[in-house]
């Protein structure tokens, strides 16, 4: 049994390589867009079943977000953080299905070394490029929030304890987010492949159940930590406004 950590390139699109993980990422996006459209196309005051499920997901996630940051910040950052959560969750859970990973759907690739077989679909988060991309989106957004909150005063944060240490510290956050998600999902893929190879009946089902649990926990962890970082960055806004108010308060 062979397992390649780097996803194989299936074909090229406009000169850019498309791997089986990118194909799965597109599929996840399509699934989410279609489900969201179905749930929100006829919004009513008394919701139907799909609208109720969508409202439940949003309300529950907002409640969890309020525990991590305050209510104002949880609502403000809900679009990005909830999208990350739903995308990662859908990708992780789709990856447990039999057609993903070491499953039944193969393609034959012809390269300079002859013919090789590659899976058509593979869990998107088992590719470091995908998880790092999500980490970098969070990184650029929380730097934007920090600069928007404090303006050029945000750069004061890079003075102590040193520019290099602060830069590495900021960069370590998205890398840590990406590595944790990538490591957990890749390990799950390898585990399912090995278990299916050793004991093809019943035992893989137990591990699939475990992978469903890991999938939702990792999605929550990624989203909640992103919210925590955004909350930390926007804390400069509170400090900045507090300084402005104390300067203008003496006239009262």
């Amino acid at each position, binding site marked *: 049994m062979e397992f390649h950590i780097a996803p194989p390139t299936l074909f090229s699109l406009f000169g850019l390589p498309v791997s089986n993980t990118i194909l799965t990422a597109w599929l996840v996006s399509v699934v989410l867009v279609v489900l969201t459209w179905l749930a929100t196309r006829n919004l009513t005051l008394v919701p139907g079943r799909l609208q109720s499920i969508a409202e439940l997901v949003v309300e529950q996630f907002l409640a969890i977000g309020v*525990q991590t940051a305050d209510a104002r910040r949880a609502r403000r950052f809900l679009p990005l953080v909830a999208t990350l959560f739903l995308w990662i969750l859908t990708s992780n859970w789709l990856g447990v299905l039999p057609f993903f990973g070491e499953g039944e759907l193969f393609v034959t690739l012809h390269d300079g070394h002859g013919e090789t077989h590659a899976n058509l679909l593979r869990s998107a988060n088992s590719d470091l490029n995908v998880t790092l991309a999500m980490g970098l989106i969070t990184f650029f957004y929380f730097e934007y929030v920090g600069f928007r909150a404090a303006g050029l005063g945000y750069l004061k944060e890079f003075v102590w304890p040193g520019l*290099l240490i602060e830069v590495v510290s900021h960069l370590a956050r998205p890398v*840590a987010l990406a590595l944790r998600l990538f490591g957990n999902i890749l390990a799950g893929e390898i585990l399912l492949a090995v278990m299916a190879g050793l004991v093809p009946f019943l035992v893989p089902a137990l591990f699939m159940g475990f992978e469903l649990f890991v999938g939702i926990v990792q999605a929550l962890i990624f989203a909640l930590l992103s919210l925590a970082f955004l*909350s*930390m960055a926007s804390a400069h806004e509170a400090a900045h406004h507090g300084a402005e108010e104390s300067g203008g308060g003496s006239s009262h």
Partner: protein
Amino acid sequence: MRRLNLSTVQALAVASQLGFVLGAAVLLGILGGAFLDTRLGTSPLFLVVGSIVGAVAGIYSAAQLATYLLARFGKKNENPEQEQ
């Protein structure tokens, strides 16, 4: 001693982040140092400096996250015996 009022998932998130951010910072420092050594031919000077900077940055980042959590979730232990 202050306790953190965290749910299980929040505690998992914090615990894993504290460890991973340390590793990620050291990794970034090592990669940056190795890159500079390759460019400048100073091996292994920047590799060592990079790993030290990465370790310090990782500890600093973990401390920042811990400070935020204590401020956000920390609450005093209610001890009736001490209050008397």
